[in-house]
C-alpha cells in the first residue's frame, strides 16, 4: 500500500484497486459515490435524471397551461411561439405543458414497473439461489425461462389486451415481463455468495434462513440491483411509449409521451413539432437513465469496467 497524506480523505483509483475489499473506514456506497463523481458523463446523466424528476414533481407549477382543460379549437396546430413554446396540438392545447405533465407519467411508469420487477425478481431470485438444486429453484427458474422466452413487448401487449388498457395495466404488464432477468441475476449472485465463509459463519451461529438471505446475502448484491434498476427504468419508459403508441397505455386525454406521438402522427406533415417534441423528451430521458446506469455499474463494481 502506498503512503498517503494523513490530512487527505481522497483516494486515487490505484489506491482503491490496491485496497481491494479491505475496509478503510468508508462504506462501499461512499466509495462508489466518489467513483461516480469522477465520471463526468455519468454525472451529466445524474443531473438530467434529477432535473427530470424535479420537472415531474413540480409539473403543475412549471406548466404554463393545464395539459387537458386548456383547449382552444380556434388555435389548434400552431407552430412554436412566445405564448406556446412548443406550439399547440390538434385540440389547441399547449404542447409544452403536456410534455411537462407527460414526464410524470413516464417516470412513474419507469419507477413503478421497476419496483414490481424488483420485488418479484429479487424475492424469487434470492429464493432460487439459496435453495439452488431443490424443487423451489427448479420451479422458479423454469418459470423465469418461460417468461424470458417470449419477446417482452409482445408479452406486455398480450397482458395489456387481456386486462384492458390503462395506466395501471402498464405498471403490471411491464413489471411482470421484466422480473426474469433480475431473478437470474440475483440467483447467480446468491449462488456465489452463499458459499462464502461469512454465510457459513452465520449459519453456524444459528441464524434463520430468512435472516441469512435478507441480512447477510442480499446486501452484498445491492450493486447489481441498483444498476439493473436504473437501466431498467429507461427500458420501461420505452416500453410504456410503445404501449401508449399502440393505444394500450393511459387513455385520452391523459398526456403521455407515447400517446402524444401516436395521435400526432396524422398531422406529421402539417405540424411536425407535435411528433418531435415528445420524441425528443423520450430520447433525453432514456439517454439520461442509460448514462447514469452505465456510470453506476462502473462505480459500484470496478472489476466489470470495460
Amino acid at each position, binding site marked *: 500500500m502506498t503512503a498517503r497524506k494523513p490530512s487527505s480523505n481522497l483516494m486515487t483509483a490505484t489506491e482503491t484497486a490496491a485496497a481491494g475489499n479491505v475496509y478503510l473506514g468508508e462504506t462501499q456506497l461512499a466509495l462508489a459515490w466518489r467513483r461516480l463523481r469522477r465520471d463526468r458523463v455519468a454525472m451529466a446523466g445524474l443531473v438530467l435524471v434529477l432535473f427530470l424528476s424535479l420537472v415531474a414533481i413540480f409539473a403543475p407549477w412549471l406548466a404554463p397551461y393545464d395539459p*387537458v382543460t386548456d*383547449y382552444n379549437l380556434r388555435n389548434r396546430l400552431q407552430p412554436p411561439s412566445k405564448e406556446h413554446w412548443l406550439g399547440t396540438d390538434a385540440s389547441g392545447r399547449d404542447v409544452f405543458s403536456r410534455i411537462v405533465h407527460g414526464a410524470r407519467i413516464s417516470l412513474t411508469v419507469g419507477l413503478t414497473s421497476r419496483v414490481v420487477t424488483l420485488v418479484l425478481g429479487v424475492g424469487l431470485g434470492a429464493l432460487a439461489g439459496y435453495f439452488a438444486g431443490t424443487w423451489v429453484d427448479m420451479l422458479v427458474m423454469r418459470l423465469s425461462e418461460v417468461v424470458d422466452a417470449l419477446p417482452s413487448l409482445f408479452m406486455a401487449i398480450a397482458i395489456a389486451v387481456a386486462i384492458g388498457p390503462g395506466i395501471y395495466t402498464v405498471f403490471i404488464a411491464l413489471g411482470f415481463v421484466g422480473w426474469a432477468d433480475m431473478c437470474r441475476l440475483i440467483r447467480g449472485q446468491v449462488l456465489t455468495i452463499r458459499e462464502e465463509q461469512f454465510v457459513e459463519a452465520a449459519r453456524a451461529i444459528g441464524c434463520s434462513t430468512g435472516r441469512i438471505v435478507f441480512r447477510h446475502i442480499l446486501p452484498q448484491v445491492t450493486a447489481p440491483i441498483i444498476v439493473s434498476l436504473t437501466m431498467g427504468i429507461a427500458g420501461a419508459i420505452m416500453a410504456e411509449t410503445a404501449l401508449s403508441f399502440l*393505444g394500450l397505455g393511459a*387513455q385520452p386525454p391523459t398526456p403521455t409521451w407515447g400517446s402524444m406521438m401516436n*395521435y400526432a402522427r396524422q398531422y406529421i406533415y*402539417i405540424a411536425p413539432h407535435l411528433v418531435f417534441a415528445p420524441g425528443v423528451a423520450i430520447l433525453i430521458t432514456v439517454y439520461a437513465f442509460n448514462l447514469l446506469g452505465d456510470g453506476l455499474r462502473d462505480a459500484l463494481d470496478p472489476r466489470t469496467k470495460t
Partner: protein
Amino acid sequence: MRRLGQLLVKRFRRTMPGPWRLSLIPVLALVTSAFLAGHALAETPQYGGTWMGAIANDPPTLDPAYSVAAVDGMLIALLYDGLIGFDTEGRPIPNLAARWEISEDNRTYTFYLVDNAYFHNGKHFTAEDVKYSFERVLHPDTASPRTWVLDRIEGAKEFMAGQASEVSGIRVIDPYTIQITLAEPFAPFLSMLGMPAAHIVDRNEIEKYADPRTDYAFNPVGTGPFKFVSFNPGDRIVLGAHEDYHAGRPYLDGIVYRVISDQATLIAEFEAGTLHAVGLSAADLPRFRNDPRYRDYIQTQNNLWLYFIGLNATRPPFDDVRVRQAVSWAVDRELLAETVVKDTRIPAKGPIPPGLDGHREDLVGYGYDPEKARQLLAEAGYANGLTFEVHMANSDVNVQLFEPIQQMMAAAGIRMEIVLRDFSAMLADTTRNAIDAFYASWGADYPEAENYLYPLFHSDNFGAGGNRTSFSHPEVDRLIELAQRTADRDERIALYHQIEDLVLEQAPRVFLFYGQTWVVTRPEVRGYQLYRIFNADKMTGIWLVE
C-alpha cells in the same frame, strides 16, 4: 353532364333535318377528337392490373344473410349480385333483374331476370336461386339479423314463425321471371333489394357445409364481378375477376384489400404508391388539395353517413330522457365542424341526412348550451355532475374528435371517459346491451329516410337490427309503421317529420354529423367514382393505365 348531353342531342334533332345530320358526323368527330386529345375521355379502357385497396378491419362474414357491417356489405357487392344495383346517387338500376314491373296497387313486383349470369362455380343463375336466397334469410334456422329487409313479403311472417314451408309472396313464374308480392304496399322495397341480405347465393354451396354460419362465411360463391380467392385475417383479402360476369368481365384482373385501420399508415401507403385510392381525413385534406401532384385526382361527395353517440335508453343514467337531452346539448357541433373535422363533416340536427326526401334544412335540433345541460342534469338528480363512459373504435381520428368533446361536456358538468377498443367487440357489446354509450355511424342501405328511422328507433330492431341503444317508444313505433304503409310521398314525409321531432325530443342518440367523403386516387386510375350507398360500387368501370 349526362343530362346536358341529352338536352343538346334533343335540340340538335329538332333543329336539323335528317340528311343534314349525317353530313355533320365527320365534322363533329374531328372537332371532338381534337377537343378530347390528351383528355382521359379519349382513352380506351384497358384490361388488366390489380386494384390495391384497403379495408379498415376484417369483415366479420362474407355471407349475405349475416352481413350488418359496411365492410362486409361492400365486399358482398363485389362477390354477389342483387336483383338491383345502385347508381352513384343511390337510384335503383338493373342488375340480375334486367327490368321490372310494379303492379297498380304497388304490391306486386315482377322481375325479368338476365339469362346469362353464372355463379363462380359455373352454375347457371335462375329464378329458383332468388327464391332460395330470400327464403334462407327469412328462415328461422338461419337467424339472420336482417329479416326486416324481406319480411314485408306476403307470407313471410308465417314462414318465419314456422307455419309455412314456403313464402307465399315469392312466385317463380319461369326460370327468368320471378314475382314478389308484398303484404302491404311499401315504397322503399325495390331499393331494399340492393341490400347485402338480398344478394343471391347458390343453394349447393350453402348446403355443402354442416354449419354454414361458420363454414360458408369465408367460402363465398356468388355471381358478382369478382370471385373470392383468399382471406388472411388481419392481413388481406384477395379477389379475382369473374370471367363470365353477366354485365361483362371487369377491367381489373383482381383486387387486393389490405386490412389497414390507421389513417396515417393509409396516407403513407398511398403516397408510396401501394394503394390506388385513399379516403382523406380533415387532417390530410388541406395538404392534398394544395399538392399539384394530387389535387386533380380528388373527388368528393356528400355521403349519407350519420355520425352519432348512442345512449342506452334502458340503463341508468340514460334511462332518464333529461340526461339524454343534457348530453345532446353539451356538444358544440358547429365549432368541431369548423375546426377538427373541417370540410369532412356537416353538423347534424336530426337523424335524416341531407340529400334524402324528408331532410329539413330548417330543423333546429340541439345546439351547444352547457347551461341548459346543467339545468337538465340538476332536474334529473345529477346536480353534482354526471360520469359516463363512451366506447369507440381505437383510432387517432376518433381521439382527435373526442378529446375536445370531452372538454365541451366538462363545461356542462359531464365527465365523459373515452374507452378505445376493437370495433367488432364494441358492436357485440351493444348487441348484448352491455354498455351505456358508444360512438358509431349509420350509412344508408337504400336512399330513403325510412332507413334512418325504422332500423335505428323501432323497438323491433334491438341490437344488430340497428337499434343498438334499445330505444323503445310506442308512439315512435306506431308512426314508423304508419309511414311504411303510406304510399303517398307527401303524407309519408309529413310522418317522417313527426317521427324525427319525437326522436329529437327523446334524444336516444346524440346526432353529431353528416359525412362528406373525400377520396384521392393515383394518377393511373380511370373510371373511379364515389357512390352515396356504401355497397353500390361494383368496381367494374375502373381500369388502370399501362
